[in-house]
């Protein structure tokens, strides 16, 4: 017992101070929200779109448009671009409420996730129990969701908890492209959650199919089976990105800082 207490005192306090304080700095090479400077794009150039392994980039009238829901943050577009028109910032805030808000164009301000309506916020704002369903996830997203429950992120302090049964849950957190083999299990799990309920699609696979979006063994993400309330991009999303999205959904984080 004394051994454990000594170790506990020695290890100190490991939980991040964010959102009360600035978030922990991601690594220098962290690939967060991409930024497009269409002014640098030569006429008729589509090198980035051609290099993108998941077809996340389309060339529009105003320049490249990048779908964060498909992006796997591989930097293939950076390598392909002769002019440096695309770069990754270290901004971890990627989550959005609507699928179309994930498509970003040149110079546009990020459409950050908005909060649930007042009634759902009243119900879930201080206590949100989620059942996680992996439906073809590679254990990347699943691992990062697990990290939220470690002492570093401690989602319990926000009343957020991953629970063992859909019957105990207020919603689902879905990862993976939804393989055809998991469609029924996902549908049944969703039906087992008592209403009102919410759905979070975490990671490129759950949003669009991600690296597998063109394969016939999957359905192209969670929205093919259930209605989605929050999309959190990434491959996999960083724990900071995941928690940022969840807290914004609950109305506990707006803009840069903390609401309550």
């Amino acid at each position, binding site marked *: 017992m004394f051994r454990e207490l000594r170790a506990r005192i020695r290890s100190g306090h490991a939980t991040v101070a964010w959102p009360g304080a600035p978030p922990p700095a991601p690594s220098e090479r962290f*690939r967060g929200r991409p930024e497009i400077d269409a002014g640098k794009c030569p006429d008729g150039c589509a090198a980035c779109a051609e290099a993108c392994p998941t077809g996340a980039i389309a060339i529009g009238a105003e320049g490249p448009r990048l779908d964060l829901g498909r992006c796997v943050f591989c930097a293939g577009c950076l390598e392909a671009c002769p002019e440096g028109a695309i770069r990754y910032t270290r901004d971890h805030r990627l989550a959005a409420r609507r699928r179309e808000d994930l498509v970003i164009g040149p110079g546009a301000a990020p459409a950050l996730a908005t909060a649930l309506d007042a009634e759902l916020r009243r119900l879930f704002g201080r206590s949100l129990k989620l059942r996680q369903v992996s439906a073809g996830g590679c*254990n990347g*997203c699943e691992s990062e969701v697990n990290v939220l429950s470690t002492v570093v992120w401690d989602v319990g302090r926000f009343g957020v908890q991953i629970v063992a049964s*859909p019957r105990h849950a207020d919603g689902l957190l879905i990862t993976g492209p939804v393989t055809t*083999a998991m469609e029924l299990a996902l549908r049944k799990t969703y039906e087992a959650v008592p209403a009102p309920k919410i759905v979070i699609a975490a990671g490129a696979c759950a949003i669009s199919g991600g690296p597998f979006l063109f394969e016939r*063994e999957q359905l192209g993400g969670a929205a093919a089976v259930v209605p989605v309330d929050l999309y959190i991009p990434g491959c996999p999303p960083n724990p900071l990105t995941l928690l940022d999205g969840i807290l914004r959904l609950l109305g506990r984080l707006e803009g840069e800082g903390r609401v309550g």
Partner: protein
Amino acid sequence: MSAPAGVAMRNGERVAEAEIPVLEVDEFHEGVAGAVEAGGRIASLFGVAGPAGDALELFAVVAGAGGSLALFRAEVRGNRYPALTHHCPQAHYFEREIAEQFGVAVEGHPGLKPVRDLAAWHDGGPEPRASRFFRVDGEEIHEVGVGPVHAGVIEPGHFRFQCHGERVLHLEIALGYQHRGVERAALGGPTPRTLIQMETVAGDTTIGHATAYAQVCEALGGVEPPARAEAIRGLGLELERIANHAGDLGALAADVAYLPAAAQLGRLRGDFLNLTAALCGSRFGRGLVRPGGVGFDLEPDLAGEMRHKLDAAARGVERALALLWATPSVKTRFEGTGVLHRLQCEELGFVGPPVRACAVARDVRRDHPRGVYASAAPPVALAHDGDVAARAAVRRLEIEHSAAFVRDRLEALPAGPLRVACPSAAPRSVAVALVEGWRGEICHVALTDEAGRFRRYKITDPSFHNWFALALAMRDGQISDFPLCNKSFNLSYCGHDL
């Protein structure tokens, strides 16, 4: 008549398809069984459909002693062939897969159950009687079904236990929920998307599978990656091993409700993932390995910073594990739980920490070294008892060895370029790559067509070998020990389902 020897090759090499003799099935069986009897092990065994989808060929890669690999090939005439499993038990799961993928009758196989075809467990496959779940009958016998959706944050799979009270008579594992079509999607490649998919074959083994894929591409293209790139790949692979072992040891602690170690190791796992992120921007090593080399450099400043953080995290792990190992209630739960036997490992060809926990010295880094491991393979970590405690002990040792390996690389990286151009693949060739991932041996085999495009891409994740080992380890154990036993293996669902 002496058994055919197969085509000799080494890890990361290619051979022209024309050089591989097409054997009759009985010669193939003799050759493979002979190589296995001589101390080899089936690293991969798979079918390849002919161009018109009619003819079926069998390919086998047997990993032998002294870094040698033997490649065998046979043609199956008609829609049936006698089972190799009959001569060589470690072929059993591969032949289940061949029967399922090609609808061929594998005659004399002891149990052609499904591998990924979930409907077949209920509807029956080619052999309906064999493909149903085992069922034990009798007074006080009960059946426990778990999954596909589990209680934890974990991938889906279905487990069926036949129990007498707490005692598990038999565990049957039905997988396939995670099937994303990885091997099919690779056909006609490589494309930029192939690499992204390989990085997510098993997302917690990104560097392991990406390295195997890169080695296949390099073998087919006829290039060697620069020494600096090889060292950085090795460093990434060992960081991946440490992070996963630390996380799993923490999860083992949590499963026996010893939370002080669980909390610390959960945090420390993240510190190791952050080291990988410092190198390549991704905690899982996405973007690090590229055919021809690596995508990121490790400058002296960064190496110094990583060294500092590695030392701190490694000290933290030592302290947490010292607590875990000094706690009698933990020992009681770990020891004698989920025992796997040495003979099972040898006969059935299991891989990774579970076999090293049975004192079987099997490790690609030593046995079939490639790149940096040719001169710097870490010692093979061994334990003897084959139980949860032994698997934990092997992982603890591997954390130490891998940390020392990473330290050495950080101190002295070879100079030179990071990447060479990887030319397009040689036509009509076969390339084999083995990598010791943190779960064990990863095997990738690629066959190219006349234009150098993949006409078959076979991935064998260590989990493909080892799910059956988990089922064996549970026999006669208590069902309440399943989470603990399962976590001591922590196998990949998507790596199996592909």
